[in-house]
């Protein structure tokens, strides 16, 4: 990939995130400058409570930035109408669905809502997009199963398919691998890599699977107490960034195996 071909999907400029009430502001992280390019798989890692969720909530317009700006497709995030934002940004969240009595097809088809008419009728094109999303995530044989019949891994795939059907340039996933076993963690992240490459969508996910992220991501955003660093995995390793992630009393990052190990 040559630089001049790279098309920026999301960028932040001197972004400060946190919470503000009438009395005071509590800043979680500041001076965040991120550029996410088309077709990239980006991992967001950091210790518990460092502000990964706050960053994702800010990037997805759930909460307002304290300072700085976010641009998606060169347009400021707060200039988007919610329906237009739904056409460029789709989400996969950690929360459980209140109702699992939908078929996989119906669930994925809900991703077409920003495009459908007032009662939500699916056009031929909508059905094609849904089937395409099911095919990309290998869910075709589960199409008419109800969601409560699915395993956690299959359900997560269905949620990803729903985001795909929403047909957006950017997909943001909040900890998509929690509750999954080792195989399915790798499976989901590998699937995300494949989707980024094949569909040229930009996929950003937060995760605690640092070793998998190192192996699969094009770019990793590392959140530490001091700053937010964005780079490719090999640069991050050679700069020793991963060692700043956690307190050093228990685990260290081993450059050779690209994994954390417990200090003996």
């Amino acid at each position, binding site marked *: 990939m040559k630089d001049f071909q790279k098309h920026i999907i999301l960028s932040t400029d001197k972004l400060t995130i946190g919470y503000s009430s009438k009395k005071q502001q509590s800043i979680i992280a500041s001076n965040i400058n991120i550029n996410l390019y088309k077709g990239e798989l980006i991992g967001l890692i950091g210790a518990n409570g460092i502000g990964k969720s706050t960053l994702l909530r800010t990037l997805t317009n759930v909460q307002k930035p304290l300072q700085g700006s976010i641009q998606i497709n060169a347009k400021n995030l707060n200039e988007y109408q919610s329906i237009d934002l739904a056409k460029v*940004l789709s989400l996969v969240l950690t*929360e459980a*669905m209140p*109702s699992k*009595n939908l078929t996989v097809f*119906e669930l994925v088809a809900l991703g077409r*809502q920003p495009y459908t008419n007032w*009662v939500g009728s699916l056009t031929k094109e909508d059905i094609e997009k849904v089937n395409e999303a099911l095919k990309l995530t290998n869910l075709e044989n589960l199409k008419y199963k109800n969601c409560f019949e699915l395993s956690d891994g299959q359900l997560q795939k269905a949620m990803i398919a729903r985001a795909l059907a929403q047909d957006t340039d950017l997909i943001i996933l909040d900890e998509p691998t929690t509750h999954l076993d080792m195989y399915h963690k790798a499976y989901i992240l590998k699937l995300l890599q494949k989707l980024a490459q094949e569909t040229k969508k930009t996929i950003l996910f937060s995760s605690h699977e640092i070793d998998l992220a190192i192996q699969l991501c094009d770019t990793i955003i590392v959140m530490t107490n001091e700053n937010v660093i964005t780079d490719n995995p090999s640069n991050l390793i050679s700069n020793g960034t991963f060692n700043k992630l956690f307190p050093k009393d228990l685990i260290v990052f081993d450059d050779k195996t690209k994994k954390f190990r417990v200090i003996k």
Partner: protein
Amino acid sequence: MSNQITHTRSFSILTIVLIICFIINISLGSVSIPLKDIFNSIIGIETGQETWQYIIQNYRLPKAFTAILVGSGLGISGLLMQTLFRNPLAGPFVLGISSGASLGVALIILGSSFFGSVFAVLLISKWSIVIAASLGSFLVLISVMAVSLKIRDTMAILIIGLMFSSITAAIVSVLSYFGSAEQLQQYIFWGFGSLGNLSWNELSILFIIYCFGIILSISSIKSLNSLLLGENYAKSLGLNIKKSRLIIIIATSLLAGTITAFAGPIAFIGLAIPHLTRQIFNTSNHKILLPAVFLFGAIVMLICDSIAQVPNSDYTLPINAITSLVGAPVVIWLLVRKRKMIF
């Protein structure tokens, strides 16, 4: 898609059942009228006896239509509330609509002694009860909506609705304490619910408001479906949560509010019909659920009314009791048989 074919078949069967129930409902009553004369009087041909025609056209037909509006309207508003609050225990009255209506009626009936005996006779007419019930539910509704516009969390609205119910129930208790036995009886009779009191004029008013409620419900199908994913997902799909929530609440209030005003607080239907429908249709898709709930609600209400009428006798049992007596065992049986609650 085989699903669609079975649904079309279920809908045709249900429509036929509805028509049969409708005919059964109007052919039963304290006076037995031959089936042929019933058909004749519906299409306007002269019947064997003039009184038969009068009974059917001015009593049984409006009652059957009321049953259809009440059953379907309460069922649909129950469905809206269950989806909005993501709570299988929600019903059309969780927002305090029926308690608001009860308060209005209690003030008129029980509080009439406070207004003085001169007014009492004037006050307790059928229309004054309808107006009092509407005003009561409207007031509670306005308060709940004012609160809901300020509140982010939908669950908080549910709790606030329950609190309003408690407040109104308490006021009704105080009023009952001071009311006379006669007034209490009158109030209790209103609480039994009644389908047979509506004239064609009243029925047409009920029907017009009902239609507004139904139109709003239909326009909410899309947002209801996205709410199945939870509010955050719904928002990420471009849904304006506050606006959709408001439309859903208004639809419910129009339906449940006017029905309560005209037919009294009929409890069970709104909670049970959506569950019955989900168990049988096995889906959460509102495009299927909404018309299915309409049909089931109307059918169940017609059946309950036929039973409450106690065929060939002069008794009319309270419809509010019959809906629970007939409906509750059906829902229990369905849940036990399927061993799984579908929501």
